[in-house]
């Protein structure tokens, strides 16, 4: 606890000096060093507490209306502390190379505040502290989203403001319901009061799901995410997509501990939401040309996979299958960490590309592997990891979710639950296949082939701190992929706590993971062996160099390479019924055609749903507009009337 407090105060000190000295190089340095120290201590504290499986708490007396500020750490908090501080530290390190000296102070100040606020959210043990942390987290992230003060950032900031505050209202309602039921605002009271009776529990769950799903970016409440994350500077995008959206996952998991053993219907609800997010996210990602926007949609997909894991875990609890529940929660939690690592890495690499080329449009890139070799390799690691392919970390967490779904499908007594759980398997397979296709597209079009523009041809590799940060993230992805059993120890504790399983029962998956790890090592060895054999074979032979085979055409130009849109078109085609695609085509006409065009815009069906909801809200609330007249006197009258009403209400009693 004291270590976490030290991390929090170091972050605060770093933020204070960075803000004080902003605009001067010293400010950037102060914020960077303070933040890095905070992240090192915070991550270390998280590891220590998790390994020791320790629970501790602290209470700071305060004369606020709802009493003291309560803090506490359990395995779930420790695990999220690790996610926050590891990805936070990597983002700060990357930011050191990314931000120009003059602006680094302000950026680091808010990044430190954001990291500290997230840490407060996961160690808060009463509703008020939680909400304070939650709102500071929102404010800091909002300032960072709008950091580059341009049209895109302002529009994104406004959407983010509305979405986030709508979510907070739901969370307030949730805590209100729980406080009313339990008679206190402390989480301990919520948990001690037991599950709310009857339908109230389901209302609480639905409210929590809607409120936290907005932050987590689950479909269809994800609309703000693909706007806000690309608008932010890249180190911040990495932080937002890597960990901040996971606070929604944390909130949901924490709420589940208050509501008692979940009925199967809740698990099914999460499966539906998670499935829609995973499939919708990856399909919309395939249609994007903007590198960062594409990555943001993949966050929707991955949060969907996490939700699928939690859903299976809840089904396991509902059907009294502790091993299923454990594997589901463990998969979801490990994917939370993994996604933080590889999504952070990918956003950082995308930022390096954007900074070096001056464009994030895939159709303007190409051939960057030769010009930015380090960034290219690191991006490839992230791409393989996010596609869930062995031997990297994405495979391990997706495999756990698969395993949980297969177990639940073959074990569950009710046919409906079994069918729902087993359907997760082909769904994940489809999402995985589409994600791999999408990242082949991104990597192939941006980094391979010939540069499509002069700017891409002149690209240079990223600055050293950026490369170091990316390399560390990539190393973590490889390490978790090759030694998953060690990584699983991180999630074993919190998963056992969530599923209500003692740790000893949860072991069978560990033996299988040793096989995964053996397979990963073998895979690397065989690949390297083959490459060595090839080298030996070719040593004394004639090795020629020629242009790429042009299939008989002459004078091919880099513009004639396959584009990202063409690559994605046949993959998206079977799904056109699900997505609203607006296509406009003008074919070549006449004997000497002068032009032809083919435009496609994919509209997010989720956004249409939200827009319809907002319109309904606006319609209901529009009579209130009459209150807004403008004169100050009128508003003073409102204040006076409110005061009077309150007095009349309170005085007689």
């Amino acid at each position, binding site marked *: 606890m004291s270590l976490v407090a030290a991390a929090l105060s170091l972050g605060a000190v770093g933020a204070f000096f960075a803000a004080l000295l902003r605009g001067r190089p010293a400010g950037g340095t102060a914020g960077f060093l303070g933040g890095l120290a905070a992240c090192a201590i915070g991550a270390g504290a998280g590891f220590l507490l998790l390994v020791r499986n320790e629970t501790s708490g602290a209470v700071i007396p305060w004369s606020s209306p709802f009493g003291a500020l309560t803090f506490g750490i359990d395995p779930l908090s420790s695990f999220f502390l690790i996610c926050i501080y590891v990805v936070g530290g990597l983002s700060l390190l990357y930011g050191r190379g990314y931000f120009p000296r003059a602006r680094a102070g302000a950026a680091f100040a808010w990044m430190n505040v954001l990291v500290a606020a997230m840490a407060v959210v996961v160690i808060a043990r009463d509703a008020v502290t939680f909400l304070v942390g939650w709102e500071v987290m929102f404010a800091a992230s909002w300032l960072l989203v709008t950091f580059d003060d341009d049209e895109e950032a302002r529009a994104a900031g406004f959407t983010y403001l509305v979405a986030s505050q709508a979510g907070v209202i739901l969370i307030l309602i949730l805590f209100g319901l729980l406080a009313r039921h339990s008679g206190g605002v402390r989480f301990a009271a919520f948990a001690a009061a037991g599950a709310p009776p009857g339908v109230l529990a389901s209302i609480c769950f639905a409210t929590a799901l809607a409120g936290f799903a907005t932050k987590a970016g689950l479909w269809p409440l994800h609309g703000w995410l693909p706007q806000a994350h690309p608008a932010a500077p890249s180190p911040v995008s990495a932080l937002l997509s890597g960990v901040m959206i996971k606070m929604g996952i944390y909130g949901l998991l924490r709420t589940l501990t208050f509501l008692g053993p979940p009925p199967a219907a809740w698990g099914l609800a999460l499966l539906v939401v998670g499935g829609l997010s995973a499939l919708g996210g990856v399909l919309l990602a395939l249609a994007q040309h903007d590198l960062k926007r594409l990555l943001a949609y993949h966050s929707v997909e991955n949060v969907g996979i996490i939700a699928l894991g939690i859903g299976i875990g809840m089904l396991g609890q509902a059907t009294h299958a502790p091993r299923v529940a454990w594997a589901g929660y463990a998969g979801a939690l490990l994917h939370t960490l993994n996604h933080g690592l590889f999504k952070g890495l990918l956003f950082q690499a995308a930022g390096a590309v954007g900074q070096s080329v001056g464009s994030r449009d895939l159709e303007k890139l*190409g051939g960057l592997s030769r010009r930015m070799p380090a960034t290219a390799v690191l991006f490839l690691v992230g791409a393989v990891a996010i596609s869930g392919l062995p031997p990297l970390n994405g495979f391990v967490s997706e495999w756990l979710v698969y395993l949980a779904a297969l177990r639940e499908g073959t074990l569950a007594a009710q046919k409906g639950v079994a069918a729902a759980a087993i359907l997760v398997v082909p769904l994940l397979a489809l999402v995985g296949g589409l994600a791999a296709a999408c990242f082949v597209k991104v990597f192939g079009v941006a980094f391979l082939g010939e540069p499509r523009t002069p700017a891409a041809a002149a690209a240079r590799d990223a600055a050293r701190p950026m490369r170091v940060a990316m390399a560390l993230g990539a190393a973590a992805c490889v390490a978790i992929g090759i030694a998953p059993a060690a990584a699983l120890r991180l999630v074993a504790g919190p998963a056992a706590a969530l599923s209500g399983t003692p740790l000893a029962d949860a072991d069978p998956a560990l033996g299988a993971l040793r096989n995964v790890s053996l397979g990963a090592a073998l895979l690397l060895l065989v690949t390297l062996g083959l490459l060595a054999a090839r080298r030996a074979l070719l040593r004394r032979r004639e090795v020629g160099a020629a242009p790429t085979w042009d299939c008989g055409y002459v004078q091919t130009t880099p513009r004639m390479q396959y584009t990202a849109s063409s690559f994605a078109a046949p993959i998206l085609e079977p799904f056109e019924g699900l997505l609203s695609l607006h296509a406009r085509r003008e074919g070549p006409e006449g004997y000497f055609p002068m032009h032809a065009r083919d435009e496609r815009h994919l509209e997010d069906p989720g956004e249409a749903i939200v827009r319809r909801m907002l319109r309904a809200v606006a319609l209901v609330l529009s009579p209130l507009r009459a209150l807004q007249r403008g004169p100050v006197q009128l508003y003073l009258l409102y204040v006076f009337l409110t005061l009077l009403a309150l007095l009349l209400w309170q005085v007689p009693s």
Partner: protein
Amino acid sequence: MNPLAGVTVHLLMLLALPPLLPGVIGRVKAWMAGRAGPPLVQPYRDLFRLLRKGAVYSRTVTWVFVAGPAVALASTFLAGLLLPLASGRAPMAFDGDLVLFAYLLGLGRFFTMAAALDTGSSFEGMGASREAAFSALAEPALFLALAALAMTTGRLSLSGILGGLDALPAAVPAILLSVAALGAVLLVENARIPIDDPATHLELTMVHEVMVLDHSGPDLAVIEYASAMKLFITSALLAAVAAPGLAGHPLGLAVGALVVAGTVGLVESVTARLRLPRVKQFLVGASALGAVALAAAVFTRGAA
């Protein structure tokens, strides 16, 4: 059989048999067309000839182009270690290994597609795009069929599933439907007619072959060998599902795989390649078969 001998036989089968399958397919097709056809060992000869050659590389390519074939072969080989070829238990078998099996094939595909895009050729990009589209749609069919089999046997590892398939009369519909879905997946995974014509001569109509246009010499040998190995392991899987009891019997499985290859040759002789838009319908149809298999498995579970 003791474990060491089992692993040795397994490795021998996995490494030596694959090139025989394209030979059988070629022979069956020639026979159907009334020609004599190349000798059965022709693919082996082709491989050795390619291995003895030098190589030409495009000036555009990077290390990804070189890594593509190596990763494809390594991942296919590893996937082959998950099947119970020589004994009832594969060299690597654990709960959930069927996911690793499919994802290893996916890894090989990822790098093959990346290597194709590395050349900057429009044709190879087109091939990669088509391959990505088809394989993404084939993935649910494969997993639906495997999930149906896991459901009928109640086991979660390939060895367990394939060993547990016999003597389950109530599961017959699910197994038959899974065989149909797996057969369709086999045709897609191995780029056979009616999905893709390995013998086509126009770049524009190719899917898999166009991706490897720029590879030559030992690299091409590795690619050919990897695709033969993929054909072998998918055929062996199909044979073990179609004829329960074959799993773990080296000779039976080898014959089974050859019979599957012969059937592929027959299919190739009597069908034409599908138009590209039709391929997607074919794949969705395969997924539908898999879904019905899964439904049958859910409903007959516990009846046997």
